[in-house]
């Protein structure tokens, strides 16, 4: 990738429409070898960007889904205990065991289970997606920090694994809590907003080509109206727009009408209160 325009073109070829700012930031991330921290409302295409990047650059995608309580052995590496024990028993059975040799043979690469981060370092060049990093605990960030700044992992019994080429790292956060500043400083920051009307129509057309032009436009315009309302518990994201457009297409709809819209609203709104509120205002919104 040698310019922001090139990034945009390559991402576009996979069906991911990046605006100029996002393309520039991705370009910078690959050029400066810095992780990319994406924040934004749920459903604005943060995870999809990593997938599209891997596809566009023809690199393997390694995904690390964060959750509360995740620790180094689930993110980095682990030793395969059962196989180590089996190996020891086998050595015993063969007799004549030199204990030093046996111990050394235990910490061999074949007993090492590579978890996502280590896997990404070994497979590099690769795209490493650290998804929803805000769900993990603070301690986990400290540990990520080490890997993301040195691109290496030290395993006491084994040695240091260094990436031949730093992987392209994408971190996503839904901002359920504030990330530590040290981690943020290491990263390039980008806030993904909901797209505007025209762009969202393009996104629907590109991601779900089976949806007709007219339907796509109607769906998107209604979703955009919903997003500016402030009484919804969970305003729909682009992912929900796509779901809804696909749902309507499965029903054979080409022109959105009140009854079908009301019947399929469940694909768009995931709270009963939201659904009730929108249903009450639906005919006014559709007539716009």
């Amino acid at each position, binding site marked *: 990738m040698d310019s922001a325009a090139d990034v945009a073109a390559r991402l576009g070829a996979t069906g991911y429409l990046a605006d100029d700012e996002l393309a520039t930031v991705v370009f910078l991330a690959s050029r400066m070898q810095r992780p990319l921290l994406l924040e934004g409302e749920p459903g604005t295409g943060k995870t999809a960007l990593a997938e599209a990047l891997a596809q566009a650059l023809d690199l393997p995608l390694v995904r690390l889904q964060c959750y509360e309580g995740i620790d180094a052995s689930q993110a980095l590496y682990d030793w395969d205990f059962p196989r180590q024990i089996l190996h020891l028993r086998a050595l015993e059975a063969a007799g004549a065991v030199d204990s030093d040799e046996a111990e050394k043979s235990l910490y061999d690469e074949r007993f090492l289970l590579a978890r996502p981060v280590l896997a990404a370092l070994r497979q590099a060049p690769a795209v490493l997606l650290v998804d929803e990093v805000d769900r993990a605990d603070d301690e986990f960030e400290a540990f990520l920090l080490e890997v993301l700044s040195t691109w290496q992992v030290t395993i006491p019994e084994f040695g240091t694994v260094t990436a031949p080429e730093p992987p392209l790292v994408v971190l996503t956060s839904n901002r359920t809590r504030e990330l530590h500043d040290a981690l943020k*400083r290491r990263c390039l920051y980008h806030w993904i907003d909901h797209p505007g009307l025209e762009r969202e129509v393009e996104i629907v057309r590109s991601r779900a080509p089976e949806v007709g032009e007219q339907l796509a436009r109607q769906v998107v315009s209604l979703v955009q109206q919903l997003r500016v309302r402030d009484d919804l518990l969970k305003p729909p994201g682009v992912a929900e727009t796509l779901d809804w457009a696909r749902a309507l297409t499965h029903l054979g709809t080409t022109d959105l009408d009140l009854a079908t819209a009301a019947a399929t609203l469940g694909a768009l709104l995931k709270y009963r209160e939201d659904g009730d509120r929108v249903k009450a205002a639906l005919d006014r919104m559709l007539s716009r």
Partner: protein
Amino acid sequence: MSVGAEELHAPDEVLLGFARALRAAGVPVTQDRAHGFLAAVAAVGLDDRRATWWAGRATLCGSPDDLARFDQVFAAWFDHRDGPPRARPRETPRPATAHLLPDAESGGAGRGDEDEDVLRVAASESEVLRHRDVATLDAHDKRRLDAMFVRLALRPPTRRTARHRRWHRGSVDASRTLRASLRRMGEPGEIAWRRRGTRPRRVVLLVDVSGSMSAYADALLRLAHRLTQSARAHGGVVETFTVGTRLTHVTRALRSPDPDRALVAAGEVVPDWSGGTRLGETLRVFLDRWGQRGMARGSVVVVFSDGWERGDAALLGEQMARLQRVAHRVVWVNPHRGKAGYAPLQGGVVAALPHCDDFLAGHSLATFADLTEVIARA
């Protein structure tokens, strides 16, 4: 960007100067971020103004609040390169760095002869301000008081959970120990320990914004914002609703770290400022739609109201009883409680009081501090 026209300054000087201006505007720009900015601009090319802008947003900012400030400073710094240097664009200081003492322009600053005296005067003034009724403050004192809200911090109350967590001592975690040993083909290993986990309890604030409470509404929402922010730092959740003639969920507006912006956002959401009070009815709506469903369950619910009920007081009593059955603790905060000669005689208060666990005053910063103590210990 017309850096080429600028003979006096090298490009990196201009860029680093911009980073400094940004720091002065309240964005936490560190040295390494500034270096990252230079490297990024070098990568996208200096001659592209928009790319420089994007590179700056990516390298110098760390949160959505930073982005807005960045845009303002960027425009001020790069769009007016001709003419004398302008005053640095300065926003209001960030809440996190606000001073504990009120700003220097107040008190005796300006004379500057005896620093220590000034400090003492400022300190005692702020102490007085702490105990003043917020409804009686003039605009100047109110601004100083707003800055002092930073000192309030809520350590969210906790509850024990049914699930155990691993711990370095406590009771033996038999299943984990056995599982670990199975994984090693029955070889015994370390013993795992566990204890009951704890989680922060939810805190729900119901703020009366009707006409009789209008003098306190601003301070109470500021308090709600402060509680929301400080509880978040400990992983706690504070949900805020305004009540009056309607029930409005304002938690999302109050999540913005900047208090002024949060208050403006909340103000835009609430439709019934300074209207009448139908406390019983709105309370019923709250319980039906949110509370009983889970939001009030096991949480600490704080009602801020003077109890001037225009509707049916019996309904209010009924709903308060319902609330108390669901919630862990119900706290009623009345701004008039702390005043001399106050007796809880209003119909609403009389009906509600039997169903409250605490009845507190809430008219000054000092009483707000007491309230956070009560919530934290609930």
